[in-house]
């Protein structure tokens, strides 16, 4: 027709709903860092939306809690080496994951998400929508913003130190240990101390 209808009320609010940014929360307790990073990066970039386009900045916010309990496969805490190289003298370093995690409990989650966002110019903008918290406490305004919860990437299992003595007693036993058997997972053997080699010619004091 020769005229065109103005944007109606429902068009306006539906467009606002379509392009609004959701705030997701995900629990990183016992979640593999790589798998978690892939999932979170997908939501930060907006790739889960039908309106996604590489040039459309439609990513959502993601709040990651319990980052201190993030998990890695098998011995990867020791074997995963994060490589840093700034091309200056003395600026190359390989730091294992456990050292970074000792210093900052949220950094491992950050690095895995940052890697999964891909090597492009947009990931600096996407990573700004990532909100990391070491445990379940968070700022109140962030809690109010949350409108969705993401499914975890793997199931959470019960840790061995969470079983009560009653549960252990009720578990059926196939083997009965001898009295002298050492069950080393209950508590560690005390450290016998450093071995001191006796000086030749001297007897024990």
């Amino acid at each position, binding site marked *: *027709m*020769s*005229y065109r*209808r*103005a944007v*109606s*009320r*429902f*068009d*306006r*609010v*539906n467009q*606002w*709903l379509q*392009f*609004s*940014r*959701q*705030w997701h929360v995900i629990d990183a307790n016992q979640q593999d860092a790589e798998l978690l990073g892939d999932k979170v990066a997908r939501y930060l970039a907006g790739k889960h939306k039908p309106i996604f386009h590489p040039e459309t900045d439609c990513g959502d*916010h993601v709040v990651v809690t319990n980052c201190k309990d993030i998990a890695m496969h098998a011995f990867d805490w020791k074997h995963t080496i*994060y490589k*840093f190289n*700034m091309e*200056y*003298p*003395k*600026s*190359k*370093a390989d*730091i294992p994951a456990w*050292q*970074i995690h*000792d*210093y*900052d409990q949220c*950094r491992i989650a950050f690095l895995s998400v940052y890697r999964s966002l891909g090597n492009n110019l947009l990931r*600096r903008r996407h990573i*700004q929508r990532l909100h990391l918290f070491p445990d379940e406490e968070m*700022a*109140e*305004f962030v809690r*109010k*913003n*949350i*409108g*969705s919860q993401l499914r975890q990437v793997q199931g959470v299992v019960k840790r061995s130190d969470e079983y009560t003595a009653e549960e252990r007693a009720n578990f059926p036993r196939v083997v009965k240990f001898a009295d002298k058997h050492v069950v080393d997972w209950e508590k560690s053997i005390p450290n016998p101390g450093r071995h001191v080699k006796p000086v030749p010619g001297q007897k024990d004091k």
Partner: protein
Amino acid sequence: MFRHVAQNLGSRNTSIQSYRLLRTRWERGYLKDLYHRRQILGADPAISRSSYPNWDYDSELYAFGHRIGAPEISEDQYIKALTNESFFQRADVEENVESAQPGAEVGTEHNAELVKRGEQNLSIWLKRYLRFHLAKAPEELIEAIDSHLLDDECLAGIASHLGIDHLVRTKEFPISQESSADAFRALAGVFSDEKVKNLVIDFIVPQLVDIDFADIYPLADPLAVVTDLLKSNGVTEIEPRVLRSAGENSAEPIYVVAIYADKLKNVGQSAGESLAIAVDMAAREALLRLWDITSEKVLFFGDRAANVPLERYSQPNFSLSQKCSPGTNTNIIDHSQPVESPDNLIEAVLRYRNVVDAEVGKSYTKRLRHKFSRGSLAKRSFRYLVKPKPYTVA
């Protein structure tokens, strides 16, 4: 030797002169100059269709009669319907020039009376159609849709597509929306009752597809109206609830609100960037759903609508003021007062300052610019962070 070389040529058009887009050096500037002179001159003036040499008003009227499905109407009646009152004030008509544009005998009749009668006919049939489809809607809504569809703007659009603009005899050129719409109404005044019905069904009713009923009939207090209507239907408790929300303290908050009846049934649901807007839109959606106006509603067009006995729907529907309680405001939103923009930017800035900034302070984007961007005018070197350590990479 020359024969051997000539036999290997694959094409005769190997010369640069055969390139069709290439122009000589003087010709390029010349053509650009011509183009820019044309740009400076602007658009050509609009010329009346009747001033072209192949114009025959009688033939056009004959074709027009067949085009709108009423060939039995006489040419005199068409001329009367398409003659505006201001036609007799034209300079060429006053000077009694032969064959005044757009054509036909000058005559003495105009369409003022036919316009009134046509408007009445169109309104009668359109309201019957609307009452057939919106049987549960109040008469106020039907009146609002009727006044919107029979507006000058809408009718002028239809008239333009029917080609009435070229046939109307009026003083002005180009023809105004009012004159074009008046000509359409005058045609409805000339037609018989059956023809007016077909005219409404074929040309006016399809405009319903593009209508947003919440904008046509914007109630000032939709929540109170929906409360009264549902309570008259037996519902005891009506309350709005927030279904979902995201980004309450961000720049783009979104709320999804539903209207619940008796805490069980969701009677309307909509979104909004603030709670007030979301509740308002949810109430409007509840009203439209209550009146059976949804996106799944199938409107009848063409023969399907023509076969409906629309004469039975001449009685008005119920009125909102009768069904609602006396204290409820059933008026439409007053557009005379300026409404502030719903995208309240100042409110978003203050929300950030009072809620987010007070809690976490300014972001470290400048301090951490070596992690976010190197686009700094200072171009300072980050050599002091050169040795990666856990306390520097974190």
